[in-house]
């Protein structure tokens, strides 16, 4: 079981990092989608939601190409940082963020839409600039959306497999996470280890979701 700790810790690190990046990236996207009047915004929304229906391997394949040393993006990254992204932890984070984006953008967008225009108008008549009002009124009022987005983003990242395999390559200590380690065990017919990891993930996922739900209920009750 000791050799399982590496993938477990790596999974936790990946999921936490991804969740933090997701919250930062999703907030402005969700705000724009909730407020913009432009007719083409639903096109952007569809693009963000694409990972919901796209097979993870397809997404991983394109990301691998985009990050690869032959693509313009890959070359830019190599020139700037002297390294390429595929088969690195950073590459995994980028892939996970794109893969889980809709799971955070959607609940946060819904929460922003539910607030309506009025609180922002009130804030502006109380001399809050738009940016000030965003952080002191819109974000606190949308808290349930952020909690839901964080739960979903975290859980979805823990459970991802296809994207990880395509960009990460299952390198022990670097990109070998729980789901791919589990796959290795099954391939090698190491049923005991596979059972242990599967049970662990089941219990862990359940605990995370339960904790967040209880937390959210309590936060909602406090706000009411």
């Amino acid at each position, binding site marked *: 079981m000791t050799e399982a700790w590496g993938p477990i810790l790596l999974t936790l690190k990946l999921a936490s990092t991804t969740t933090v990046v997701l919250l930062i990236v999703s907030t402005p996207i969700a705000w724009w989608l909730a407020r913009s009047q432009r007719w083409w915004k639903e096109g952007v929304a569809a693009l963000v939601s694409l990972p919901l229906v796209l097979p993870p391997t397809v997404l991983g394949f394109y990301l691998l190409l985009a990050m690869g040393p032959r693509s313009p993006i890959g070359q830019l990254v190599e020139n700037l940082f002297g390294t390429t992204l595929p088969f690195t932890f950073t590459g995994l984070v980028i892939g996970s963020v794109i893969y889980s984006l809709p799971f955070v953008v959607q609940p946060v967008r819904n929460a922003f839409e539910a607030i309506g225009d*009025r*609180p922002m*108008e*009130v*804030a*502006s*008549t*109380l*001399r*809050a*600039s*738009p940016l*000030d*009002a965003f952080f*002191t*009124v819109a974000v*606190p*009022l949308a*808290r349930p959306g952020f909690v839901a987005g964080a739960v979903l983003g975290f859980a979805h990242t823990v459970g991802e497999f296809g994207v990880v395999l395509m960009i990460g390559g299952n390198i022990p200590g670097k990109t070998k996470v729980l789901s791919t380690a589990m796959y290795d065990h099954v391939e090698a017919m190491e049923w005991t280890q596979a059972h242990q990891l599967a049970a662990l993930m089941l219990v862990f996922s359940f605990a995370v979701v339960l904790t967040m739900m209880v937390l959210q209920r309590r936060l909602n009750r406090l*706000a*009411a």
Partner: protein
Amino acid sequence: MNEIEARFAGRVGDFRLDVAFTVPARGVTALFGPSGCGKTTVLRCIAGLNRMKTGDLKVLGHVWQDEKTFVPPHRRPLGYVFQEASLFAHLSVRGNMNFGRKRNRSNDKAPAFDDVVSLLGIGHLLDRSTARLSGGERQRVAIARALLSGPRMLLMDEPLAALDAASKEEILPYLEALHNSLAIPTFYVSHDMAEVERLADHIVVLKDGKEMTCCSLAAFMRRNAAPDSEEGGTVLPARIAGPTDEDGLTPVEVDGGRFWIAGADQTPGSRLRISIPAAGVALFEQPPGRGSVLNVLPARIADVRSAGPAMTFVSLRLGADGRGAALYAYVTRRSARDLDLAPGKVMHAAVKAVAVADRGGAILA
């Protein structure tokens, strides 16, 4: 300089707005009219929450909007009270009240926190969550929140419309107290004439997105009194001149005369308004003998106008010298002819109906 000049023209959806008015930058200006006439849109334009295609707004010498300028709402030193209190659900009552206060970094002096709290009677609510307030309490907190941001102008969008009758009566005295104790100009949107009579000094009447009238409330009441309205009359500022006697009557003083009225329970010296309908005033050449009417005052005729086939509308000024407050009488054409009613003639006005137009004006006066 001491004026508010506004002109807004443009469309909001299917609605066309085209208004222009200039009102003095003091006292309460009512934006009055039926629902859908554009009152709220005008108020939102003044606040900068709506931006009309063409708009000019000059407040106390500052340009807030013209062809080149548009000052965003958060840079306009104003307080806005919405129809629904719209308190921030994530903040306590105190948090709501401090929101604007903390952000008032300009030189605009905000009233002291404790003064506003006692003015609106919300001291016991400060640490509550906003969800546990009644409708009237929420609106009082919203008014306090607006005042504490140090506004140089107050905008109120039917602050009583969403409330039941009891909550309305709970808040009106506070609004009257505000009117008496605050020097900042206020726009007050309403479709309720009784509210306007109690609170306003000036009135802008709107209909279908256009302004019909813009004048002082007294002038509006006078115009409304003639020729076919029996409800019209005058609203006079008055002062309690002495204690209420054992018959329940209180002497009140107006410019050029003194009335006995029932139902005024304020302390001597405090201010209030009384309303006298034109139909409740009878005119005598000589002081009438013993009778039931208590208030008979000399008044000089300023104007006589026909008001329909059988009626005449007489404008008078109180006092034999005709220098007092305005009073209106609605009399038959025959009486006007028999009595030779004409400008300059001094009559004795028997005022049968006098009512207190606002109550509670004494709280802070």
